């Protein structure tokens, strides 16, 4: 388990940098259709900010609450992505053909726009959850024997 960092410089700067990088991740995700970036990079930036919170404040701290809570979203991103494809199927078209998304009052290019945005959010959620999950998995102690005894006893 990762212990909290004891340097005042790191902790103070972390409090400022972590929200800014989370905001930047959401910006990269939302403006991926207009500039460089997109779901994958936005998700990685968001995951990096929460991994930074884990490394600075420790896994058990209240400051890394969001990182622990986001682990419950394992698979939600994939569900969003495949769900958009399923909605296209329900709309009467092929899987992931956004022209068949049943959204009222939208012409076909705008349906594609909405489809791209939703799938990007799905990719971002999936990547962010996986990044935090791998970091937390790696931060578990390798003391396997004691935990096995604990689970058996």
């Amino acid at each position: 388990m990762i212990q909290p960092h004891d340097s005042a410089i790191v902790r103070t700067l972390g409090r400022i940098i972590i929200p800014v990088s989370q905001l930047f991740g959401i910006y990269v995700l939302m403006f991926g259709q207009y500039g460089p970036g997109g779901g994958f990079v936005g998700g990685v930036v968001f995951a990096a900010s929460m991994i930074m919170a884990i490394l600075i404040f420790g896994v058990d701290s209240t400051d890394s609450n969001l990182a622990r809570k986001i682990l419950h979203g394992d698979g939600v991103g994939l569900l969003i992505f495949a769900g958009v494809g399923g909605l296209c199927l329900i709309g009467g078209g092929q899987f992931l053909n956004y022209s068949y998304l049943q959204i009222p009052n939208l012409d076909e290019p705008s349906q594609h726009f909405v489809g791209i945005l939703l799938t990007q959010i799905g990719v971002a959620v999936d990547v962010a959850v996986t990044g935090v999950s791998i970091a937390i998995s790696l931060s578990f102690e390798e003391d396997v024997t004691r935990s096995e005894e604990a689970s058996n006893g």
Partner: protein
Amino acid sequence: MAIEIPLLILLVLTAAGAILVKDLIAAVLILGSYSFALALVWALVGAVDVAFVEAVVGAGLATVFFLLTLFRTNEKDRQIRRPPVPWTAIVGLPLLGLLLLFGAGDLPTFGDVNSPASTHISPVYLESSLEDTRTPNVVTAVLMDYRSFDTLVETIVIFTAGIACALLLRKGGS
């Protein structure tokens, strides 16, 4: 043109350093700087999305994962005992490099409008993606709309990696 030569020298130096250095933590940090130099090269040739991914994943997240993995190992596992290089590698690898350079002579030049890559399907994407999808960034339109199946399977791969890491490493965890 002036900045390309120092960048390429930096790339070769950091790649060689990451291989040759004895301490694995130092090798990981040098590999991160290699990724950052590579991201600058991608940005220089106009592949901004690739540069972004290389900087964020290669220099950021992968370095953190490597370091977290190394912190789980013992002190003696972080030092490399490198066996002597066999003479077949000393002779064979430069020959292979020469062969690759010889093959690279036939590649189309950078930005060639008559090359197969820029005559086959790229013009279709560049001309019609804005009308089709209202998405000015063509890379996003290709990834998420024209080639969304590839992206879906890529997402499945990432999900599987996370599940596998959790199953392997969180033994006895809550």
